[in-house]
């Protein structure tokens, strides 16, 4: 199963990379979402997959009985999902505000911070 998810994550990485190089902030934000999911999937897969068994100790045992899912990547991914949401919110609002202020969604058109480079590079 892990090799299959490795391929899936690879495809997601490719899609994310493609979207992040588009000339539209909206596409870039979508790319960011895909990238976050790809990374989460990678972490989760690399921790090893266990079908069905969760990382919860059945009452009244004091240690897991039999197979249990690796809890460590789960903990990492859980916070990563929530932080990914925070970042998405930030990126979306940034895109929205730059549309309001700069009247463009084209990252190549956003040269307020580095205007000189625009003149000289072109």
């Amino acid at each position, binding site marked *: 199963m892990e090799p299959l998810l490795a391929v899936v994550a690879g495809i997601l990485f490719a899609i994310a990379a493609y979207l992040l190089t588009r000339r539209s902030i909206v596409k870039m934000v979508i790319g960011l979402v895909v990238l976050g999911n790809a990374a989460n999937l990678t972490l989760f897969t690399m921790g090893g997959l266990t079908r069905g068994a*969760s990382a919860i100790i059945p009452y009244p045992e004091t240690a897991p009985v039999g197979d249990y899912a690796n809890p460590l990547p789960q903990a990492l991914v859980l916070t990563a999902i*929530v932080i990914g*949401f925070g970042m998405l*919110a930030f990126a979306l*609002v940034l895109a929205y505000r730059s549309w309001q202020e700069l009247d463009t969604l084209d990252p190549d058109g956003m040269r307020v911070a580095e205007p000189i480079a625009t003149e000289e590079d072109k």
Partner: protein
Amino acid sequence: MMRSLILQTFTRLLVTLMLLFSLFLLWRGHNLPGGGFIGALVASAAFALHAIAFGVASARSILRYDPRTLMAWGMIFAGAAGLFGLAAGKPYMTGLWLEIHIGESLLKLGTPLIFDIGVFLTVIGMVVAVIFSLEEEEF
């Protein structure tokens, strides 16, 4: 905001249930799926739903506190939970537990619960702040 009677009726019921459920998730998180993050997301979804059905002003009033205040309190709770360990002469954030015997059952209260409440409040504050602010944007 959508002025839909069906939506509003269901929302009234659903929001209450979701908020109760979120507290339940927060409480049982230490032993079963749930916890501060998940509980907070459920609660945030409830407030977002309310904001869609009744408008942000109404949602803000049922939340009672400014989301920023919630974030601040959340971080204070989470940070302070670690101080108990420090006070007991152990490293920062060491969990301490209090065992209360009530008849047959054993109630265990620990600093990780305080920490989880901190997580809960911070995440609610953050998500709700973002969604409310965006809904208040001018169309």
